[in-house]
């Protein structure tokens, strides 16, 4: 048999290697085998494991031709300061060839507070744009046709409110909800586990999410209602396998919740999307992307009995790994981002945000954002990486690694199932602990130089302080406060109170879908803080259980 002969040759090779190792030892901390051969793949069933692109189990990609017809969406994450400032940046990105928008909101917005709330002090406009009401949202999308652009919004706990504002702006532009394209992140479980911008306890949070699934399936059919995010889990320090395992476990929890709320799986599953990190190890990342599609398609088909092939597809937005950028020798980050971009493209992402070289120091400047966008364009148009579907399919190494990551992912899903699902696993701190252990191991590997980070623990130089970093003006907070005062003086405050009261009543009826009530409140210019305030009053606040 061919394999017998191969095994014998492999043994001979290994014996030869032993001799060479005596003279020349290998580097330490190498995670994978030395060499991969057909022996690593066992009885490799092509049709069961790979199939064809656009077909179950989608290992080779979710579309039949992938980037040969259309490149991934180049969607740069942006937003800072005020709606006025961010609107300028969005129009600049669209004019520079960006093909979608991705909104970064400041922390008060992400946690449901207005700019004039004492808790917002020092944070207004810092890590994203400050949005207090529909008025800010109108300014944010001024002269941007919402019927033509697709918009991703990184918003979780108050996702329902920002989506309502987006729908309301579109209405004012004359664009009906069925014409809207985009995504809200809307993934609260990873906020509890890794990112921290939660507001309410899990139960009402899950209700808001399933309310959005239901509302959009009827009214905003092209909207991606959730972006189940491994990105932040990875940024918090997880491994590649943990990233997809914990995220898919979260996905299972959302699907479970929606089915329990009475929805039909095939009515909403096609609008679920995912968000991966593109980390440094190129081939491990490619394998991760491929494994994640195989796992999710099996979850949807076999566990949830979805019958529409669209429900089986894991569609993914990707961002290059912010945590892998170094403050030291920041120009080196351009190279890191290029390699991470290659990983995302070889892995078959549907859209991509590339980080800018100065992001370990501050928010990016316009120049550094342009280099980051150009990196995508060079990979798309010049590198050839986008010319063939899943070009690494069939690589002994990539296939073996895809199998291995898939197996590790299923092992974690089993553990989380045994604990009672992702919500319970997070409440018990299990997922957080696994992530923290990996983060600590990474740091210790860097400090002991088992892992080399160029410019940080090797190849250091004496550096000049970087110049020309973007600084957000500290007057942003005052500007937002003035806008809010003016809004409250001009709007119909009786209407605001009436709509907030109706929302409060709806919150207390667990069978009510909250989206229409939120939309009504948004339309009369109730603020984000007022709307979330009503929900905080009824739902209460989540109290994190922190362990080290």
């Amino acid at each position, binding site marked *: 048999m061919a394999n017998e002969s191969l095994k014998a040759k492999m043994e001979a090779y290994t014996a030869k290697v032993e001799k060479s190792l005596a003279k020349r030892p290998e580097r330490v901390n190498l995670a994978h085998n030395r060499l991969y051969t057909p022996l690593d793949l066992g009885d490799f069933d092509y049709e069961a494991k790979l199939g064809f692109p656009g077909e179950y189990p989608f290992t080779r990609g979710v579309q039949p031709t992938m980037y040969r017809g259309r490149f991934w969406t180049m969607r740069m994450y942006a937003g800072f300061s005020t709606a006025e400032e961010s609107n300028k940046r969005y129009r600049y990105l669209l004019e520079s060839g960006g093909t979608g928008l991705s909104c970064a909101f400041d*922390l*008060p917005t*992400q*946690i449901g507070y207005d700019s004039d709330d004492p*808790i*917002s*002090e*020092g*944070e207004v406009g*810092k*890590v994203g744009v400050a949005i207090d009401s529909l008025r800010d949202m109108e300014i944010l999308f001024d002269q941007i046709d919402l019927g033509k652009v697709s918009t991703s919004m990184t918003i979780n706990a108050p996702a329902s409110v920002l989506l309502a504002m987006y729908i309301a702006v579109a209405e004012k532009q004359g664009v009906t909800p069925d014409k809207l394209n985009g995504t809200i992140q809307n993934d609260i479980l990873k*906020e509890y586990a890794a*990112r*921290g*911008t939660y507001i309410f306890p899990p139960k009402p949070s899950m209700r808001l999410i399933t309310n959005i699934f239901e509302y959009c399936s009827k009214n905003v059919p092209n909207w991606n209602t959730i972006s189940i995010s491994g990105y932040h889990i990875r*940024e*918090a*320090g997880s491994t590649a396998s943990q990233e997809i395992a914990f995220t898919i476990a979260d996905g299972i929890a959302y699907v479970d919740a929606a089915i329990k709320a009475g929805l039909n799986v095939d009515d909403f599953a096609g609008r679920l999307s995912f968000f991966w990190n593109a980390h440094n190890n190129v081939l491990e990342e490619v394998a991760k992307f491929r494994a994640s599609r195989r796992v999710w398609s099996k979850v949807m088909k076999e566990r949830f009995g979805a019958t529409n092939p669209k429900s089986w597809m894991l569609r993914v937005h990707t961002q290059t790994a912010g*945590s892998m950028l*170094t*403050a*030291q020798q920041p120009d080196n980050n351009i190279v890191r981002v290029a390699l991470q971009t290659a990983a995302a493209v070889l892995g078959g992402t549907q859209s991509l945000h590339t980080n800018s070289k100065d992001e*370990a*120091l*501050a*928010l990016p400047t316009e120049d550094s954002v342009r280099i980051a966008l150009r990196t995508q364009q060079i990979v798309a148009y010049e590198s050839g990486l986008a010319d063939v579907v899943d070009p690494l399919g069939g690589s002994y190494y990539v296939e073996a690694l895809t199998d291995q990551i898939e197996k590790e992912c299923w092992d974690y899903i089993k553990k989380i199932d045994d604990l009672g699902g992702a919500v319970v696993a997070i409440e018990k701190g299990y997922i957080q602990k696994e992530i*923290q252990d990996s*983060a*600590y191991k990474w*740091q210790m590997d*860097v*400090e002991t130089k088992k892992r080399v*980070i160029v410019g*940080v*623990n090797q190849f250091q130089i004496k550096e000049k*302080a*970087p110049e020309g*970093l973007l*600084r*957000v003006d*500290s007057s942003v907070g005052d500007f937002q406060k003035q806008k809010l005062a003016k809004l409250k003086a001009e709007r119909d405050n009786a209407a605001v109170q009436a709509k907030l009261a109706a929302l409060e009543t709806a919150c207390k009826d667990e069978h009510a879908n909250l989206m229409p009530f939120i939309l009504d409140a948004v339309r009369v210019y109730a603020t984000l803080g007022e709307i979330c305030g009503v929900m905080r009053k009824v739902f209460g606040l989540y109290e*994190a259980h*922190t362990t*080290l």
Partner: protein
Amino acid sequence: MEKRIRVLVAKPGLDGHDRGAKVVARALRDAGFEVVYTGIRLTPEQIAEAALQEDVDVVAMSLLSGAHNTLFPKVVTLLKEKGAAGKLIIGGGVIPDADIPGLKAAGVSEVFTPGTPTNSIVDYIKANVK
């Protein structure tokens, strides 16, 4: 027996990115300090209060959101007001070099930026706790 150094590790403001804070907290604990980690999203008042109640020698704050110029000095001021001016206060996170002199003038003893090995934080604390 020598008293073990007690450190409060805290994240002021609304930023939830606590990878760095948790890694530092664990490294300090492994170095033999007693560490209290308060979790995320604390107001300066809550941090100052916790520092007093836990009677720590060091307050270590981490922030990535850019609100450090507002929040770090506020913690320093509150500790002074509460009569706890002697504590060693250090900060870390994504903090531009240009902001560091201002933070030091406001009473933050040292600022550790990305790429700092955890043992330099350990050494700094050992050398500077009175």
